[in-house]
């Protein structure tokens, strides 16, 4: 029993140890045999099963998560065993710089680079499967079941739609309009120049000149201010996006 689908899947799973791989493949061999006995063609069955890449990715993700859990557990056990001794030896041990602080600083550093990836993760739940050779970081949930993250994801979606989108849109609209005002103020001398070309308001040229000068400087100051505000808005948005992603993935967040 060997067809294209099985061969492909076997190649994709080549990193998995032999015995586990046989076990994974068995399910599909059985599927083909029963399907053929029920009068379906190999092509039909292959089409129904779907993309081997996606299947291999699911299998590998769970396989890796399983291993991680084992490692984590033993680490926790070791910690538990070590802790009492540490307390005995160093009762007045200084609190360590909190891991979280360090993490969050690192995060703000490359936030910009990450935002694009995060957005992709949010809006494209099914990434194009990559060949297994270039082992992608495990996308699958670290702490929650698929159903759990689905529930969290849908709840977040509702929450965001109802409470966040309105105010956020308002803030961004206000921001954009203030930016537009700043730009217009900055460019106000152009109005003066063009109006003087057209022959208007020569009599109040001095007044117009000083008004446009004031407007220009005001506009430039506003522009600079808006650059700072924009940076904070962007950071806020990125942070919020990341928070959402972390909540959906579960674990790690706290």
């Amino acid at each position, binding site marked *: 029993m060997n067809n294209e689908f099985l061969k492909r899947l076997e190649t994709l799973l080549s990193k998995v140890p032999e015995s586990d791989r046989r076990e*994974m493949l*068995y*399910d*599909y*061999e*059985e*599927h083909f*045999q*029963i*399907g053929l*006995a*029920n009068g379906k063609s190999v092509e039909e069955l292959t089409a*129904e*099963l*779907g*993309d*081997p890449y*996606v*299947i291999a990715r*699911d*299998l590998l993700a*769970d396989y890796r998560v*399983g291993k991680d859990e084992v490692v984590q557990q033993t680490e926790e056990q070791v910690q538990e065993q070590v802790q009492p001794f540490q307390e005995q030896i160093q009762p007045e041990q200084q609190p360590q710089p909190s891991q979280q602080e360090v993490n969050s600083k690192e995060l703000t550093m490359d936030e910009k680079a990450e935002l694009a990836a995060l957005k992709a993760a949010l809006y494209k*739940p*099914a990434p194009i499967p990559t060949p297994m050779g270039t082992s992608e970081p495990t996308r699958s949930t670290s702490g929650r*079941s*698929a*159903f759990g*993250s*689905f*529930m969290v*994801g*849908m*709840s977040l979606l*509702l929450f965001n739609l109802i409470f966040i989108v309105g105010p956020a849109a308002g803030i961004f609209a206000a921001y954009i309009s203030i930016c537009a005002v700043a730009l217009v103020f900055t460019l106000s001398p152009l109005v003066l120049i063009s109006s003087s070309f057209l022959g208007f308001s020569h009599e109040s040229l001095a007044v117009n000149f000083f008004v446009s000068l004031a407007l220009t400087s005001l506009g430039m100051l506003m522009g600079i201010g808006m650059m700072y505000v924009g940076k904070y808005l962007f950071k806020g948005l990125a942070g919020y996006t990341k928070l959402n992603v972390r909540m959906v993935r579960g674990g790690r967040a706290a």
Partner: protein
Amino acid sequence: MNVQFKKGVLELCVLILISKKDQYGYELAQNISNKIEVAEGTLYPLLRRLTKEDYFTTYLAESTEGPPRKYYSITDKGNEYMKDLVDDWKQFSNAVNQFIEEGLHHE
């Protein structure tokens, strides 16, 4: 349908179908794909995971025709888990239905 959406619901459906009756993979795939459009191949990773988490156990049974079949059967732990998920689902879908109704009434 959205992929994540389907994945979450699929887990619930698989638990319910197997709690009703022990089934082998192919049978389960047919039962589900009759009603939900799904890539049947992705059911096996799901079954493996649920088995690994002790929600299912498996046993091999000979059949009158073809190879022995790997049957999945639900454990007590799996039943508990399913009940939790069903409760979650009911709460959640009630809330969504309410939102939908309210939303449609306003328009």
